[in-house]
């Protein structure tokens, strides 16, 4: 049958080729043969809420590598389609790449079929891909978007599970954020209420979780368009450099200068003719 997408047509049933590969890799790394590199985790708070006219997504902006903050202004709300955005928690590289792959596929699909992609299609593609990799891709995603069928918010887990919900928080800071959402979420909120709810939920995550911090990004998606507010709220603890750290040439005094001649001996000389066939 003709499918209007570029993903390879799925063979019926499941493909577990990666399971054996994963077992080999895991056993290898225990014996020290293959040392898996330590991935940069986002240690994150992300949240999403469906409101009257669309979806509000929010995220903090801290990316950690163990105890060090690797990126203070990391963008965790990724573009998928003009009407679909995705917040990613988990391993930074995995969420980046997964969302990029999804975005390319959906763009090609909409060019081929002449239709705007639906959020549920993005979710299906993600589910297929993450399930195939058996949880090895550490991507915990919140997908939100508005399409012809309405406003939708989905969560996709790294093992390929999905759930459709009106409000959601993910990442290491999801417990405090969920507390705020559970307390104050109402169906059909208006824009300002929804933005302040998501912002407060992320703020709770930032305050109570070590892996989340810095600024808060918001993304408001409606039928009319997208408002990507980056940053919505800046951290009051942003460190501003007190002085310039660039030094003028000549700041360091030169004390001595020694020149050593390197004696080169010509050993062999060969000439190779180039095949420059000129026009006759």
């Amino acid at each position, binding site marked *: 049958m003709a499918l209007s997408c570029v993903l390879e047509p799925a063979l019926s049933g499941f493909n577990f080729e990666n399971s054996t590969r994963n077992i080999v890799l895991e056993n290898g790394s225990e014996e020290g043969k293959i040392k898996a590199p330590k991935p940069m985790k986002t240690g994150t708070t992300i949240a999403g809420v469906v409101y009257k006219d669309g979806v509000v997504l929010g995220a903090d902006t801290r990316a950690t590598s163990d105890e060090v903050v690797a990126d203070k202004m990391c963008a965790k709300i990724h573009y998928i389609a003009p009407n679909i955005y995705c917040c990613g928690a988990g391993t930074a590289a995995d969420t980046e790449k997964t969302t990029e792959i999804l975005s390319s596929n959906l763009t090609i699909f909409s060019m081929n079929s002449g239709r705007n992609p639906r959020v549920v299609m993005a979710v299906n593609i993600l589910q297929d891909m993450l399930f195939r990799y058996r949880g090895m891709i550490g991507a915990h995603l919140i997908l939100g978007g508005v399409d012809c069928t309405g406003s939708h918010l989905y969560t996709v887990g790294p093992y*390929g*599970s999905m759930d459709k*919900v009106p409000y959601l928080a993910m990442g290491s800071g999801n417990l405090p954020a969920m507390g705020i959402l559970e307390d104050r979420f109402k169906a059909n909120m208006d824009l300002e209420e929804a933005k302040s709810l998501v912002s407060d939920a992320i703020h709770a995550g930032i305050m109570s979780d070590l892996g989340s911090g810095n600024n808060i990004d918001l993304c408001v998606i409606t039928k009319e368009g997208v408002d990507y507010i980056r940053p919505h709220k800046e951290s009051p603890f942003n460190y501003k450099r007190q002085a310039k750290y660039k030094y003028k040439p000549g700041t360091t005094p030169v004390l001595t200068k020694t020149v050593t001649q390197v004696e080169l001996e010509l050993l062999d000389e060969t000439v190779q003719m180039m095949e420059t066939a000129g026009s006759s």
Partner: protein
Amino acid sequence: MNRHSFDSRVKGVSLGTTILAVKFAGGVIIGSDSRASMGGSYVSSKVINKLVQVHDRIFCCMSGSLADAQAITRAAKFQLAFHSIQMDEPPLVMAAASIMQELCYQHKEELSAGFITAGWDRKKGPQVYSVSMGGMLVSQPFTIGGSGSTYIYGYADAKYKPGMTREECQTFAVNALALAMGRDNVSGGVAHLAIISEKGEDMKEDADRALSQSRCVMGNSKAKE
């Protein structure tokens, strides 16, 4: 029957659950709780939907690993739709159950999900099939499954009588779910029920009619005798 869904071994979100299905004259009632847990101590969703409509008059309820169960039901939905188009008629409940069983059995090493498939077809009327985690397929007049089912085997065996009416079956299902949710820590939330029967004379009419009722019962309502 699914005795235990091994929650501690399931990675990711798990459906430690209570699911059941009961056959009555003219239809089936299929029901589940609505809790999804992670690691046995965190409820990741209080209102997850475990009843999946794989075809117009065939429903499946899931237990075990959420990712595996969702992947299996999606694959089954696809294969069943294709089969139905090829045959040019609605599929038999047996076909749906067999598809799930094939998937569970062929990949039993990698997957951990169990199902109850129930529905109505023109050949055999209402049917209930239990597809266990390893791929066993059994047809029964009623069946219970999931981790919470261990607490209601006695109740189910005592209360079930063949030839119950639809209302009696509904009460039986709701009470059984409520009792299991009351004792099992990984089952809870609300009880979802789907009542599937043949409705309407014209088989090609809008299939939503066949699903005559989908009810949601609050988890804290007491089991009525």
